[in-house]
Each structure stands twice: as C-alpha cells, then as structure tokens.
C-alpha cells in the first residue's frame, strides 16, 4: 500500500465520522493548548525575572559583609558570629583589581525627611557618584551625587521621583533644602521614574553622599558594595580579586560573601525552568487523558467497522496494513488536535499578554515541539491495542455478522 493511499484512506475515515473526529480533536486540542499556555506562563515569569536582573546593572558583583558557609543561606544572618564590618576603606581597596571598572559602596537606613510641615519616613541610601552608572539610573532633572573623594561629606541629596512630588508637589524642588534626620541637604537632582526593580523602588528613596549617611546613621559599616566588572568575561576574576583583597585586609579571614548577578540569575533561572517543566508536565497529563479517549474511540471504531475490516482482509489486506490504517488515522487525529491546540494556546497567550503586558509570556520552543510530539506519541501508543484487535479479527466471522 502506498503512503499517499494510506493517508487518503485514513483521511476518508476521519471525514466519514465528523462527530468522532471533532471529539478527539477537542480532547487533544485542550491538552496541547494547556501545555502551551502553562509553559508560556512559566517562561514569561523566567524572562521577566531575567530582565529585572538586567535592570539592576550589568556585570554586577555584590560584596556583602559576613560569610555564608552554606550555599544559599542568608549571609551574616545565619552564621551566628559577629563578623568584621565591611568599611569604606575595604571598598576603595577593591579598585586595585584590574578586573573592576567601578564600584559603589552602599549604606542603607531609614530616615525622616521634612520640608516645611511635610514629613515622611523614607529609605535613605548613602553612596557615591558611580552608583548611577552601575545601577543604570536616569535623572529627570539636575545632577546625581558629585564625583570626588567619598570621605568628604557634602550636604546634597538626590530625590526619587515620588518623594519629590510628595514633598514639593508642583513646586520646583531643585535647589531647595530638605531635612533628613538631624541634617540639612540641598536637593541637586531628581531621578526619573523607574518603578519597582526586584523589591527596591527607586522612586521612593533619598540618596545622600556616603559620608553623610555614615554620619546620619552613626556607622562605619557598609551595607554592601556594588562592583561592576570590566566585562562579562572578567566577572569571575573580579570576584576572586574581591575575595582576596578583602581577605588580606581582614588579616586573612574570609569574612565577606561575594555574589555575582550571574549566579543569582542562574539560580532563579533553574528554579523557574524546573517549575515550568513540572507544571507543563502536569498539563501533559491531559494529553494522556486525550490518548485514552482516542483508544476508546478506536475500540468503538473497530467494533463498528468489523465488516469493513473483514472485507479488507478478504480483499487481501495484511494485518500490518490494517494496523497501519488505524495508526495513520490516530496520527491524523492527533496532529489535527495538536494544530487546534497550538492555535488555541496562542490565542490564550495573546489574551494573557493583553492583560499583563509587562510580562513577556511566550511558549518556550521545547514546549512547542514537545506538546504535539506527546500528542502523537500518546495517540499511537493508545492505538496499539485497538489496531491489534482489528488486525486479529477473523475475516469469516467479521463478514458473516450483519
């Protein structure tokens, strides 16, 4: 039997029973659509997290005080011993590494900001001029912190967009004085709106020079140091250098943790990928259910078409040909269902994208291949038994029954 004849024969069978075909198409379609939709949600989440990390700045290394002995533990919190503070001098020493382009030490605290009678509590960030480039920040008006020796404290500050509008309303804020804690700062810049970025909303913070923050919070200890490597390839060098430099400065003790953005991103990436795969597999169970439906439909077809099968055998069809005819029919149904499902899944995805435009929902390529492949494979597997039964029909009995 020629392939084209086989396809034509199976196609006529499918067309000859439109209700049955529709039912299987629907079951397969729902399964495939579910896989496509669910994996697009997972993949969208993964891409969203990746882009969020990207907005933190590129080639970023973060140096934290405290040493985590166990991977994944919160450094400095779970260690249980007091570690040496990370100081500004430590941070500046990192500049001696050839792999480091620039760095920004950070101190974080909460403070009251007051303008006239208005008063609110804001997160206060102490840092240096280089923070702007490392974190890819943009200014709406004015300037960022002035460059210069970070040990010098100048009474200037930069306001987040929301803080500026809350404290000053429609009045011009640039050049005005604000009071943060017990010190006065002149507003020299207002940041552009950036929105939330991994939990930190730069619209709602006040940035002051590092030395001013040290005085404000009465501490020498840095919250962390953001280090930017010269290139992606030099991230590992910069990390090793940072660890070594701090170790030498801390009398040989490794009491800081250096994490790379890559490592954090890779962890998130792995988690979300595994999640997508797991949820996608759950959706694939619906494909197995559809496979069982196909098996039922085929078993009914074998009973309904007993006479036809007997006739085909009388006309000289081998068992192999009968089996092939059933498999071809099942594959046609599964492929049809897969196409319906891919279209439905894509429609569903575009609806979700309309609802949440910020998240790049997109089915991963492997799901687009695996869903139809699973549909076809289950269809074939579940047709084995009906096809066998058909091929083993006794033609005399099959033909004699009316």
């Amino acid at each position, binding site marked *: *039997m*020629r392939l084209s*004849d086989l396809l034509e*024969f199976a196609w*006529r*069978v499918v*067309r*000859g029973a439109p209700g049955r075909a529709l039912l299987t198409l629907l079951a397969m379609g729902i399964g495939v659509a579910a896989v496509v939709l669910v994996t697009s949600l997972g993949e969208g989440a993964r891409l969203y997290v990746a882009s969020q990390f990207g907005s933190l700045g590129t080639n970023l290394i973060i140096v934290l005080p405290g040493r985590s002995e166990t991977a994944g533990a919160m450094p400095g919190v779970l260690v249980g011993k007091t570690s040496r503070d990370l100081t500004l001098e430590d941070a500046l020493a990192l500049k001696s590494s050839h792999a480091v382009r620039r760095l920004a030490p950070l101190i974080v605290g909460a403070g009251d900001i007051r303008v006239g009678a208005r008063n609110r509590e804001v997160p206060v960030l102490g840092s240096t001029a280089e923070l702007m480039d490392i974190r890819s920040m943009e200014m709406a008006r004015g300037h960022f912190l002035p460059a210069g020796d970070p040990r010098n404290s100048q009474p200037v500050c930069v306001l987040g967009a929301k803080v500026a509008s809350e404290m000053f309303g429609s009045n011009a804020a640039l050049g005005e004085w604000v009071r943060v804690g017990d010190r006065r700062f002149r507003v020299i810049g207002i940041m552009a709106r950036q929105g939330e970025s991994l939990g930190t909303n730069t619209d709602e913070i006040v940035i002051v020079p590092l030395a001013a923050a040290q005085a404000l919070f009465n501490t020498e200890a840095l919250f962390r140091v953001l280090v930017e490597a010269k290139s992606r390839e030099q991230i590992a060098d910069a990390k090793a250098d940072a660890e070594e430099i701090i170790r030498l400065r801390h009398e040989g003790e490794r009491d800081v943790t250096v994490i790379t953005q890559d490592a954090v991103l890779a962890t998130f990436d792995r988690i979300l990928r595994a999640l997508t795969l797991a949820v996608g597999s759950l959706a694939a169970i619906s494909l197995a259910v559809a496979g069982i439906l196909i098996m039922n439909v085929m078993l009914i077809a074998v009973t309904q078409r007993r*006479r*036809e099968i*007997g*006739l*085909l*055998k*009388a*006309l*000289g*069809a*081998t*068992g*192999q*040909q009968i089996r092939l005819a059933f498999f071809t029919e099942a594959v046609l149904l599964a492929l049809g269902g897969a196409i319906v499902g891919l279209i439905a899944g894509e429609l569903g995805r575009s609806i979700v994208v309309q609802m949440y435009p910020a998240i790049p929902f997109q089915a991963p390529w492997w799901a687009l291949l695996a869903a139809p492949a699973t549909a076809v494979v289950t269809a074939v597997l579940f047709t084995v038994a009906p096809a066998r039964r058909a091929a083993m029909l006794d*033609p*005399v009995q099959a*033909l004699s029954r*009316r």
Partner: protein
Amino acid sequence: MIRLTGIARTFLVGGEEVHALRAVDLEIARGEYLSIMGPSGSGKSTLLNIIGLLDRPNAGTYELDARDVTALSDDELARVRREKIGFVFQFFHLVPRLTALQNIELPMVLAGIDPAERKRRLARLLAEYGLEGRAGHRPDQLSGGQCQRVAIARAMSMGPTVILADEPTGNLDRHTGQEVLNVLEQVHHNGGTVVIVTHDPEIGARSHRRLRVLDGAVVSDERD
C-alpha cells in the same frame, strides 16, 4: 488449478466438536463454472471460505495454482487472496463512505499498484460492467444490482484466478438477480473461473458443474 485433498474442518461449539467438512476431495479446473448447493449448515460456506483462504482446514492439503497454500502464514495468505481470489458477497460488502470507483479500486490500492495503471484498469472495468455513469456514486445512491456489479468489478480488478460468489443473488429481486448472474456468466465466457454457492436450484441449473454438499461431505458432483 484448485486441488483439495482430504480437507476437514471442525468447529468447537459449546464444547462440542462440529464437523463442518469431513475429508473433502475436490478439483476445479481453469475456466469452470461451478455451483455448490446444499441446505443451511451443510458446510458449503465453510468450503467456499477454505477455497477463498479466509479459513484454514484442520486436516488435508490445498494446492492453488500448483502451490501448497495449506501452511502459509496469515500475511502470505492475504497476499495470495489479493492476487488470486475475487470475492462476491450476498450483502455486497461495499465500504459505504467510498464511491463506486473507490470501492473497485480498493484491492489495487492494497496491492500498491501504480496510480496510472489503476486508472487504466478502472476505466476498463467501469466500461465492462456498465458503471460509467455511476463511478462517483456512493453505495447508498446505487441500486442493489448496481452494488453487486460494483462488487464483481472489484473482485475482477486484480485479474484473479477464481471468482467466489456466496449467494450473490440472495439479497436481490428475481429480475436483478438474473442480471447479476448474466454478469458472472460473462466473466465465465471471458475465460474466468466462477464458483457460486447458492440455495437456488434454478441458479444451480445454469452452471456447468453442480456440487451437492450435505453434512460436510460432497454427495454428488454432476457435469453437463
């Protein structure tokens, strides 16, 4: 051409052995027009099924065109059926979703014959059996006589050694039955071998050799 030697066939019915055929010897030569008659349950259909390789004997040997086909596998039997046997059934057994043309084409499709060659043979078969105007009709749009003509054309499509007709007029009125018999006799005149199983003595009388089967044995074998 067809030689049955000591063919026996038993069925188990409710734990009891039923002898449908007991040691049948039969030879059929090329170009014969033979009828097998006998009452219901006499074993005539079993004999036809064994000649048609749809059923296997429990004992005896069957030679078809000088080849022992008794011990062939199922798939080999299917191939021999495809090439050498043409069936015509009482209830036509046309595939309802296929047109007359597609029904006639079926054995050639199963045999994997080249589409151009199929087209050539189909044109000839349609003309020969007066079905040119009916090629695109489905069985439910055809009369009983036309259905049986389609079935005969289908049986002839592979140029078989023998045509086996099981009560070919049993489902038709008298007039149409005559018409179908004429078609089968035309096959015979063109040199084909025709074996008809029937209840009807009138049909038996038209054939050139009459076999009577009773209780699984051939009780008479008359020739003109």
